[in-house]
Structures are given as structure tokens and as C-alpha cells.
């Protein structure tokens, strides 16, 4: 039985809708150096959790670099390093399961949003995410007193907090979070473009991961602009999309195999 009062899940992907923002990652170039992971964490106020908590799998990084082993010594190989972050699905499995609409689809930006002030921490979304890219604040990691020094009045001072980016909300305990495609940078660029009376063009926005990547393996841009680098790469014959068969319409394209097609 369905109640007419419950709004329908709106993130239905329509055929031919490319999405607005996209990433392309060239796995032939990615060296697994983790600069993107560090850059993302620094930009987005992502807390670190310490040895014990990370052992429980509560590490908060919004992206991870995957590698798997293949074969046995001496024929052993790793699969290409693969940075995995929120795929900003066009039809996202995380969205319909949120009971409080904290995980919603942005119609204008075509991104999956995580609205921290709505989130009540059911973690259904993380449960339903096939990419396992959502992370949960199991504690107030950033204000754990072990990171603080007492000042002369005995008040706790957290020197590390000086690094916080004022453009990104500092999340508290009990809130889900994930990669936002650096939406604060998108907004900044859009605002800048608007103040100059023009549209955002390819190259206006660079998320922290792509900006840091020493191999330039991460390319970000407008998917709805057929001339943009990322659009072309997402159409490339090397491009694959993670778990595409689930119909999630991921906006991140991975370029597999050799860049000249001479490798498997």
C-alpha cells in the first residue's frame, strides 16, 4: 500500500541525461601515491580517527585507493591503482532509503547531496551504497581531547583546528558524510562566473584531488559540455564505469588498460 503523501524518489535517470559534473580517472597513470586522499582530507575537514578506530574500519577518508593482488609469486601483479570516491550516481541507491531526506539528489548540480543538518545517522545510505564510499562519524573525532593542549587557564586548545576550511561544515558525531565533488569549489566558481556574467566553463572548477594529482590522472569537468575533456574521456573506449550494471549511472569514468590500447 502506498501513501500518496510520501514524495516519490526523484532521482530517476532519464535516457540521454549526461549529468552535470563528472570525473575521469586514468588508471594507467594513477601511481597510487595517495596525494588525492591527503588533499581531499585537508580540503574537506575530514577528521583522522587513530590506529584503533581505523582498525575497526572507521577511517573517515572520502576516497580510497584500491589495489588487489593477482597471481602468485613470481608472476604476481597488482591490479591498477584505482581511486574510489562517491560516484555521484545519476540514479543513486543511497537516496531512496534515507528516511529523513538527508541524502537527496541535487537537481541543478546533478550531485548526490548529504545534508548534514538533516542527517540522523541511520546509516541506511551507507548500507545501500554499492561502492562503500560513505563514511560515518562514529565519534567527535576532531574534538577528542587527546589532540588538545591545555592553555594557562586549563582550557583545551586544539591547534589542528586552525586548519579547518571555513567553506566546509565541520561534521559532528552521528552524521554520515561522503565526497561532494568539492561542491564548495563548484559554488565558488559558479559565483565567480555569475559575477562576470558568464557560464561556468571547463577548467573553472578543480576539486582538491584533481588539483593535487601529480600524474594528472584525475580530470574533472562538465559532463553536459560535449567538448569538455571529461566528456570526451567518459565516451572513450577505455572508459568503464564501476558497477554500471546496477543501473546507478555513475558520473566517474575509469580509463582502464594502456593509454594506447596496447595493454589488456
Amino acid at each position, binding site marked *: 500500500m502506498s501513501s500518496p503523501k510520501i514524495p516519490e524518489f526523484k532521482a530517476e535517470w532519464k535516457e540521454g541525461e549526461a549529468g552535470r559534473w563528472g570525473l575521469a580517472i586514468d588508471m*594507467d*597513470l594513477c*601511481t*597510487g*601515491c*595517495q*596525494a588525492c*586522499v*591527503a*588533499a581531499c582530507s*585537508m580540503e574537506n575537514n575530514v577528521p*583522522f*580517527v*587513530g*590506529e*584503533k578506530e*581505523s*582498525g575497526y574500519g572507521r*577511517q573517515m*577518508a572520502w576516497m*580510497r*585507493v584500491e*589495489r588487489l*593482488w593477482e597471481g*602468485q*609469486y*613470481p608472476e*604476481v*601483479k*597488482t591490479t591498477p*591503482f584505482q581511486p574510489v570516491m562517491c560516484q555521484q550516481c545519476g540514479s543513486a541507491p543511497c537516496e531512496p532509503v534515507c528516511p529523513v531526506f538527508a541524502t537527496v539528489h541535487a537537481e541543478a548540480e546533478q550531485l548526490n547531496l548529504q545534508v548534514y543538518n538533516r542527517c540522523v545517522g541511520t546509516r541506511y545510505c551507507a548500507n545501500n551504497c554499492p561502492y562503500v564510499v560513505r563514511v560515518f562519524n562514529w565519534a567527535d573525532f*576532531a*574534538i577528542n581531547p*587527546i*589532540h*588538545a*593542549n591545555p592553555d594557562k587557564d586549563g582550557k583545551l*586548545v*586544539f*591547534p*589542528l*583546528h*586552525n*586548519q*579547518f*576550511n*571555513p567553506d566546509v561544515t*565541520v561534521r559532528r558525531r552521528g552524521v554520515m558524510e561522503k565526497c561532494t565533488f568539492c561542491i564548495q569549489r563548484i559554488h565558488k566558481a559558479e559565483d565567480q562566473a555569475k559575477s562576470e556574467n558568464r557560464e561556468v566553463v571547463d577548467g573553472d572548477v578543480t576539486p582538491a584531488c584533481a*588539483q*593535487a*594529482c*601529480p*600524474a*594528472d*590522472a584525475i580530470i574533472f569537468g562538465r559532463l553536459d559540455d560535449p567538448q569538455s575533456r571529461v566528456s570526451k574521456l567518459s565516451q572513450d573506449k577505455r572508459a568503464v564505469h564501476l558497477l554500471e550494471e546496477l543501473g546507478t549511472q555513475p558520473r566517474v569514468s575509469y580509463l582502464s588498460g*594502456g*593509454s*594506447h590500447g*596496447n*595493454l589488456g
Partner: protein
Amino acid sequence: MTDNFSRRDFLKLAGLGAATATILTGCGPASRYVVREPYTKMPEYTYNGQSTFYATTCRECAAACGLVIRTHQGRAIKAEGNPYNPVNLGKTCARGQASLQGLYNPDRIQNPGQHKRGEKTFTDMDWDAAIGVVGKALAGGDFAFLLGTAPDHLFDLAGELSKAYAAAAPLRFSALAVFEARATLGEAARAIFGKPDNLFFDLSNADLVFSFGANFLETWLSPVAYTREFANMRRAKRGYLVQFEPRMSQTAAKADEWIPVRPGTEGLVALALGKLAAEIKGKVLPAFNGVDVAAVAEASGVEQATLERLAQLFAAAERPVALPGGAPLAQSNGLEAGKAILALNAFTSGGVYLTAPAAVNDAYHRPASLKEMAALIERMNAGKIKTLFVHGVNPLFELPRALGFREALEKVPTVISFASFPDETALAADYVFPDHTGLESWGYQRAATGAGQTLISGAQPVIAPFYNTRATADVLLAASAGKLPYADEVAFVQAQVTGLIGAADGFFGAGDLPSFWAQFQQFGGWWTNDAKLSVPETPLLDKALQVEAPPVQGEGEFYLHVFPSPILAEAGANKPWLQEIPDPMTTVMWNSWLEMNPVTADELGLLDDDVVQVISPFGMLEVSVYRYPAIRPDTVAIPFGQGHTAYGRYAEGRGVNPADLLGGDFNSAGDLAFSGLKVQIKKTDKKQTLSRLESKLGVYGIGEKKE
């Protein structure tokens, strides 16, 4: 702080913490009573709440990458690469990204202080007293400077100062220089190319790269620059990378082929490949004549057919390049191995270049070899050094314990550390006079390799000093009381770069110092428009090269392969986010591990996380096992970077320091010969679980129930 700096009111603003409090208090009425600390005098070009960007130099390693730091209300909030700097062209590595965690590290030394050696805390002093102490030490004459690897302004100043006081020249040193065997590389380059200059390996245009243990995507020489080169190579011609090393490093994981050679036989393999390739090409290269390919195949564990196949690849390549990494050079036969590997580059011209001369103080000073460090230790032991100044290096952690630096330090009457963090050496010093961290200080740094341009990367403070620290250059200049003609650090840096003002080829031009200086700060340094690389002279390959098989050191069963952690390197352990970034190969966080082939581990009955004793003739340590599928069964590996006994809350008491296992033997170029070391592995009944990102399930059946 210098006069120049205090005149710059724009950095003068009160309290940095309050804006943070605003962020933290969340919603609700509490926000209301958070007092925002505004500027007293706001610079004209900024607005409250608008970010200002400053170009400076990354000090996390010696590569001289340029940074642009985003600052907001007087706080530095994000490090990005400087897109102008030819070394990194706007890119950074994880260590550069985390540099702010050094600046805001809660364990920073906040005041100058003194203490009894070994105590954990310091009694605060004031800076006048500190300068008095330094002045007395300088006047005494018998002092020595021990500095970090970076060829920076402080090294130049310490050099001038040492000369003025007729003291020994300062030494530059760090663990990375040991692992990269820089002295051996320089010597091998001199033997093959006639000059000891730094080499630049042109991977961008290569179609085949043979890397002999060069972990150029991790820490080797200039990792950001070489990662870019590597990406260019893959993009342009899809160059083929073959990595020869006993343990698959992150670089080898990116390679198209990984050849697990026995440690110490890399040079032999290079000679064999050279011989075979010369035969295929019909070239006469006497250098490779003295090698027996079958014997090499036997010694190295690489099948002859593989050698022949690789030689064919090499002969067919248009632009092959061979890289001599650290591990093959850090052997008793390291110099010969280095020559053999560099000699492979004789098949083509244009794969290897000599780097451009430095823009300032032309003669490049390579970091001290370990033998020179041993000589310093001897002088310390002999009581010839009355004062040791330590800056930018942590010898108690970074030097092999067997060299006896700890004992020698006790013989030095006065030890003065300029460390920003309470590291092992600072705690063993009498005084600590904390320098600003890199992001709070002035300076410049020469780039040793990584860019074709003649380059000097500039540094400027991006925020006002956070604590009561003082630039070491200022302390030294104040304490030397007019011995040198510089008023302060900025005056010194300006004097050094003055020569560049009229330089013809600079990418910016200026008529006078003020406008040059403004642009120097704006662009984050000075460099030439065009690359200044020179093709080396015809290699000296007329004599047959000989590479001895290295003698094996120690009684054990396993070769010990020590490699610098790609994420932590030598000094990253106190930055919590670097600790939490998974190691690219093992995904282990916050700890040390011993890599062991699963076959070997099965023979020894070891599972993941089992603690073993690693025993070398020089020391013993206990560490958890990680069953690493891509390592020779006769080799075990431990990353270097953890195992601090001090250095703040995030580093202390975490993991093990493999430097404690290393001996004190040198190769003929004076670098430590550590790669031939064999260790014993003893099982314990302890288990210590490693935090790792990867799932333990399904990785070679680990964690699955056996029955």
C-alpha cells in the same frame, strides 16, 4: 623576526583560534558569544573572509616543490602546488598536502628552552638569553652544523658563518640520502659522464625505462617531478617500465614488469643486459665485456631467457633510460653497480641529462655520505667539537644506531637543537631554540633535480609565527654580532638573490631589488625560461666494468630490505593524517610491519599480524608480519619512518625503526652498504593486529576459517 617582516602589518592580527571556535560550536546560541578576532590593521588588498594566497616552498623533503598556501583571516588552511614552479607545476604529494599538520601540530615546541639531556620537558628561556648561548658557542669556535638535506639559504648562511669562524663546513644529511645513496650516485655519474653533477632522467620522452630499485614514484630524488615525467611517458608513447628489485615497491606495482632480482645483483644484471643488448645492436662497448651472462642469471635469480628478452627490448627501444635507485647503490658493490646501470644509458643519447647549475651558489653541495657522518662522529668522540648545532634533521632517529651517534653526542659539551618538534635529538640536546616551521619562514632552496630550468624556489611566511619561535638564521646572525654583513635573514636572502636581478633568461625581469623581490615572492622563486640541461659527454665506457657479487653481511636467513615509507618518508610520522593514510601497497596505517612472502610465512607458520623478532648483528626488534605476495621468498622488508621514541604524540611509541638493525659498513663511495644485510626471523607467541584498509578476508585466504 626581521625588521622587514614586522613592518608588514598585514600579518599582524590577533588570536587565530577564535574563528575556529566559530566553526566548532555548531548551531545554536553558543555561536552568538563566539568573539571573532578581527584585524587591527587590515591590508588594503584583502577583505574579511576572503582568502589570500602566498607562494612558498615545501619543506617536507628536499625536492624544492613550490607551494601556494591559501590563508584565511591569518590562518593557513590549504596547501596547493605552485603552478609556476617548474619542479612540480602545481602538483603536490601527500606529504606536501599534510604540511599544515606540521605547522599546527599540537606538539610543537613553543618557546626557546633548556633542560637536562633526556628530560621530556624544557624550562623556557627568553630569546636574548638564547642568543647569548649561541653567541658564546660561536665565539668558542669548535662548533659544527648538522643540517637537513635541503640545499637552502640556511645551509649557505651556516657555510659562511663556519668560514668566518674558521670552523668545519656544515654537513647536510637525512635518512633519504642514505636510502638513495646520493654520494654513490654522484660518484658513479662522475665515473661515467665525467662530472659529479646531478642527473636528470628524461622519462617524458623515453619509450623504455629500466629502473633498478629506483622508487621514483615514492621518495626518490624528486617524486612529484618524476611522477609527472612518468605520466608523460605513459601518455606520449606508452613507454614500457621494467623494475628490478627484490620487493615490489609502489613504483614496481606501476611497472609493466617486475623482475625480483636477488639483492645486490642489480649491477650484474645491468652489465648482462648491456652485453646482450650490445651484441644485438652490433655495438662494441668494452664496458660490458667482462660479464658472464649465465653466471649473472645464476647469481641474480633471473632466468637467462628473461635477460635475453629484456635485452632485446632494450636494443629495440629508441629512447631507453636506465635508473640507478638507492638500494642497488647502497651495497658494498654499489659504486660499480651504479656505473653499470648508468652505462646502459650509453645506448642512446638524450635519456640522461646533467641538471642545470643552481641559480645561487652555483656549486651544488650534495648531502653528506654516511662516511662523512662517521667522520663527524669520530670528531665528536675525540672531543674536537665543543658545540653541535642541529637543524632540520633528527640524527638519533635517522642514523643507524650502530654508528654510535648517541654515544658521541654525549661527548659534545653543548648541543643546540633548532627543532620545531620535540624529536629524539632535541630531547638529547641541552638547548632547543625552535625555528619557525617552513610555512612561517623566509628563505630559498635550490632544486637539485626534477626540473630542467636553473631554479631557486623562494619561501616566505604565509602566516605570522604561531608560537614564540625565531628564525634560526636570525638567531645566528644576531649571535654572531656583526661577523657577517647581513642585518637579518631577509637581508641575507636578498643579498643572495641580488645577482639574479639583471639575469637575461629569467622568466620575470626586474630593474631593482624591490621589484625583483616583490616578484620573487609573488611567483615563489626565480627560474630561467628555458631548460638548461646539458647532454653528458660521451660516456667513459672504454674499460670493462666489474661488479662483484656483494658479500653477505650477517648470519641470518633473509635479506633485509629497508625502504623509506612512501607516505611518511623520514619526518612525516608526527603528522596524524599521514599516519592515517594507508600505505599504497599494504594499506597499513599508523604502524610498522614486516613484509614476508606468504610461502616463507607458511614455512615458518606465520599468519598476518603475528609478531616476530628480527635479529641482525647490530640489533633486534619486534614487529608484526604482513604476508606480502610480491617479495622474494629470501627477503623480508621493513619500511623506515616509524619507531620514534619521541617526536610528539602521533609518532611516539609507534612501530619500529629499522635503522636500529643496520650496520656501519660503507661502500667505496662512502655510503652505507646496508642492502646485503641478512637477518634472522624468530617467531614469538605474540600477535599485534595491524590497522589496514584492505579487507583481510579473501586476500590469499587470510582470515578465512581453515577447517
